[in-house]
């Protein structure tokens, strides 16, 4: 088994931490994992992305051109990764930040209003966790519980009070993605 995930968005949206949470969960589940950030001269508001590779065996390339899984937290990332995704792959899109639907019909695009869901839970900064929750619908190797345990184990002590809201964000994202998926299947029929 090997799965590659790209998480992309603006700097400040929690792109890198979102990837780290997935990486921690994979590590705790006994997998090999590589987390690789874009590390150019980055700044808040600029673009940021990271690649997470999860595998049973020694990981080769830390980078992937055509991932089977991706999260696009903003429109430029949606534009970029919709084109690059593997056929049959799943792209979680933060619907709150895009003004269009999917162009390709050979990939599974899950439109999830991550900002609104995060704000409903009570903290805009949970956007990334909503998206990670949505991603888990297409990543059966990791369960919501795996990611919850990873958060509990690796979130810095000063942020531990935010754990319940993070759990809620994961679950809400997961549920929203399932609904989005059903609608997509329904509209295709």
């Amino acid at each position, binding site marked *: 088994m090997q799965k590659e995930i790209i998480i992309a968005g603006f700097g400040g949206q929690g792109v890198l931490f979102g990837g780290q949470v997935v990486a921690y969960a994979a*590590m705790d589940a006994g997998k090999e994992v590589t987390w*690789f950030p874009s590390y150019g001269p980055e700044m808040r508001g600029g673009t940021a992305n990271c690649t997470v590779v999860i595998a049973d065996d020694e*990981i080769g390339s830390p980078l992937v051109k055509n991932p089977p899984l991706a999260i696009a937290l903003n429109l430029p990332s949606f534009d970029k990764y919709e084109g690059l995704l593997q056929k049959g792959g799943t792209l979680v899109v933060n619907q709150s930040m895009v003004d269009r639907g999917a162009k390709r019909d050979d990939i599974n695009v899950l439109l999830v209003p991550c900002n609104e869901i995060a704000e409903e839970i009570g903290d805009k900064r949970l956007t990334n966790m909503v998206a990670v929750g949505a991603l888990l619908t297409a990543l059966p190797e990791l369960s919501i519980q795996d990611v919850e345990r990873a958060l509990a184990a690796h979130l810095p002590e000063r942020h531990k009070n935010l754990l319940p809201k993070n759990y809620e964000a994961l679950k809400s994202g997961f549920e929203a993605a399932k609904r989005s998926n059903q609608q997509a299947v329904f509209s295709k029929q």
Partner: protein
Amino acid sequence: MTREMWEGNQAIAEAAVRAGLEAYFGYPITPQTEVLEYLSRRMPELGRTFVQAESELGAINMVYGAACAGVRVMSTSSSPGVSLMMEGLSYIAGTEIPAVLVNVMRGGPGLGNIAPSQSDYNQAVHGGGHGDYYPIVLAPASVQEAVDLMALSFDLAEKYRSICMMIMDGSIGQMMEPINMPEMRPVQRKDWDWATNGRMGKRERHVLTSIYLDPYEEEKTNLRLLERLQQVQANEVRYKEYFLDDAEFVVIGFGTAGRVSLSAVRAAREQGIKVGLLRPVTVSPFPHKVVDELVKRIQGFLVVEMNTGQMLEDVRLSVKGRAPVEFYGRPGGVVPFPDEVLAEIKRVASSRLSLEANPRDAWFERMMAMK
């Protein structure tokens, strides 16, 4: 032992601490700065020495001084910073004292960029500083391997009174992977029979110098350095091999180019191509012997590097024209994707290969045709 997730730069910093690093001198430069940042907290916490020097030149000369006193010392930098250290490195080599240096390589020459690159292979392996000397050079391909080689670097440097340099490209410094961090080893300052650590009126003076005004004395020193290279060549070659048993073609790549090639080799295997991978872990000493053995039973080599073909020359030196050698490189801070290397493997496996062609020239032509 439980695995922990570490970023490459911080991981090698902690690994050096656990290997008994007593003194660190450095200067910030991307993509290496996290080593410095980490040690600026960690070293004082343990009562050990950390100095952010005024420049790379200052840092390497502080390393020189501490190494003369026989303490475990290192510096880290990235390509332009390592160039600045070359004078000091040559003096360290000439003085025959152990020192460890990590180069988290980025695109060059000049200021270049901060993207991952393997452009400093020649500088590391074939000198860099002036004079006849041969550093030991290690090239990790993962965070775990970087951590393991960090401890080894000190042991090798001390064993051979040599510079041990670890070259890893920026991606290994910046990535996070789960690793087993070695146990903390106690600091053991050895009373080397060469160290200038204070004679306390009890022994003969130790003299450390890199100046030999008498050419015959310098010649002796040069030959001693060469003798150590031969010992290193005989004892310390390390490499990783993948799918070599029945391989008809072999990819050779170090560091990140090596692990990207692993993905490509696996994909080629799935398509029925009998290809293997040789990933040198020590690039100096270069694994000449294993290449020499492969020459006898394979149809061709493909060298993959993140530069314009630097290790390629060492591979050709091992092959000695007895088997075709092909090349694929991405210089400038570009990391190749596995599908590029896969396309090259397919090309090599399906074309009539020439013993005479210059692999770099042929690659250059293909690159220019694509642009």
